[in-house]
């Protein structure tokens, strides 16, 4: 079973929930925790253990072979992303614009643009008790998170049995990286806070999950600040609220030190218990 922890707004507590929920669950069972926020992965700050594997991850880009090229310019015509350009007697490739579609390469009449590997980031697999923690981080300067997220999910699916619970810490927002991280999961937990920003971005996140056809529920973090509009919205739209994590300066302090909080804060542990019970009772094929 795959559960994504997502949110429209950043900084609502996705990582706090993902890491603590995984650790709480791992008190009894095997669990996989994956940090798919490859631009700014933070879950690893809270999980320490033995490194099982480190893989460099690549994307495929075309490389110009000057010797066989006739400068016909078909590659430039075939690239919708302006990543391959003919300039005088040269073909220039712009790797950051390339989407690895292979069109330029496979449609080149003289096979002068073979696809080669380019490093985009690194995947790390760490074992910590009953947690298998997988983290990928995008190299600085690489703009596209989607291929790395896709390869990370692929790694997880090839390594672990279907029935093992997998928790994905998703990137913030509603654009392509979030879609990639959530499109194949069974259930999505949207973390929000009870403020106007929280509500506005929650609505966008809910719309996204409706569009994807993903069953979803809400966890309200920092409950007690702001106002009641998030609760009202969830009630009106029949979106289950799985837990309300009380606003707590203590929680923020523990988080700031990179510590798991559920063992220190009984009221937080109670909320995790509610989420776990809900997840385990989900009827998912």
């Amino acid at each position: 079973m795959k559960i994504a922890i997502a949110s429209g707004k950043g900084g609502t507590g996705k990582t706090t929930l993902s890491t603590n929920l995984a650790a709480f669950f791992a008190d009894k069972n095997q669990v996989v925790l994956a940090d798919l926020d490859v631009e700014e992965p933070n879950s690893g700050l809270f999980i320490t253990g033995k490194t099982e594997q480190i893989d460099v991850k690549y994307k495929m880009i075309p490389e110009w072979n000057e010797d066989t090229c006739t400068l016909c310019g078909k590659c430039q015509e075939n690239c919708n992303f302006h990543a391959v350009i003919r300039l005088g007697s040269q073909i220039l490739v712009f790797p950051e614009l390339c989407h690895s579609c292979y069109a330029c390469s496979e449609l080149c009449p003289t096979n002068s643009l073979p696809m080669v590997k380019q490093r985009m980031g690194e995947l790390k697999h760490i074992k910590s008790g009953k947690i298998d923690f997988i983290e990928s981080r995008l190299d600085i300067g690489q703009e596209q998170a989607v291929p790395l997220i896709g390869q990370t999910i692929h790694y997880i699916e090839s390594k672990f049995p279907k029935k093992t619970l997998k928790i994905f810490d998703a990137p913030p927002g509603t654009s392509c990286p979030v879609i990639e991280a959530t499109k194949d999961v069974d259930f999505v937990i949207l973390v929000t806070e009870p403020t106007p920003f929280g509500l506005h971005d929650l609505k966008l996140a809910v719309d996204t999950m409706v569009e994807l056809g993903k069953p979803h529920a809400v966890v309200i973090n920092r409950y007690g600040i702001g106002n009641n509009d998030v609760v009202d919205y969830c009630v009106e739209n029949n979106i289950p609220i799985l837990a309300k994590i009380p606003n707590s300066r203590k929680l923020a302090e523990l988080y700031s030190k990179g510590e798991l909080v559920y063992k220190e804060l009984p009221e937080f542990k109670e909320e995790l218990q509610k989420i776990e019970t809900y997840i385990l009772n989900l009827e998912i094929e």
Partner: protein
Amino acid sequence: MKEIVIISGKGGTGKTSITASFAILAGSEAVIADCDVDAADMHLLMQPVIKKSVDFYSGVIALIDENKCTNCGICADICRFNAIPLVDNQHTVKDLDCEGCGYCAKVCPEKAITMYEQNVGDWFISQTKIENTLVHAKLGIGAENSGKLVAKVKKEANQIAEKEDKEYIIVDGSPGIGCPVVSSLSGANYAVLVTEPSMSGLHDLKRVYELVKKFNIKAGCIINKSDINLDMTNKVIQFLKEESITHISSLPYDESFTKAMTVGETIVEYDHSELKDLLVKSWEIVKLEVN
């Protein structure tokens, strides 16, 4: 005219609240651009009246004419994004998976595939409650090309600032280090990095600053919630020293951020004590730094 971009790496550090405060303090001297197009929240504090709204088209997406299609499957074979599965014996494009490369349309023997332009969102020119201009946008659900929409918002803001002879463009960036952030930084004169003294905050600050360095942009940093973890605040300050990043200010953990937001105000409108003073000073420092 100077372009000031506020970014944070990590989300939820108070970036938008601080940007909106600067927007109020700058008043008629600035044009505001909300480039966090994924989760644009600035309008909740600036209460803009929309003066102009434009559909944003970017990129293309494949469409199969089922009358011409023989389901030979060539398109599905060459598609690297697995975007053309067989659904009820008919190859069908999954819109959210299609990258718009157009490879399928080029190889279809029946010429059954066309690529059509995609509406990926809208952008707006608005007048805020203090009557300065806000350029903002709304990205469609799951849309790609957020970087291009960011570029569009910035370009419009630049043109207005130039025409109206404004001193500043204040840009609210997005979290992360990917394409929308790269797009926000491109062409900027100064970056304000907003962080918090947590392991995550420092980690993300370091990563986003690596990106800022690649652009050769001068930067300053605001440490929000600085009293949450004094030890970590010192580590952040140490990092700023090592990298010669100006430490603009440290703001205390203060629920006024939330309370102001709840009534649709910026902090400098809501608060009349220490926090407001700190933000006024911060904006003065940013102005000195950029000029």
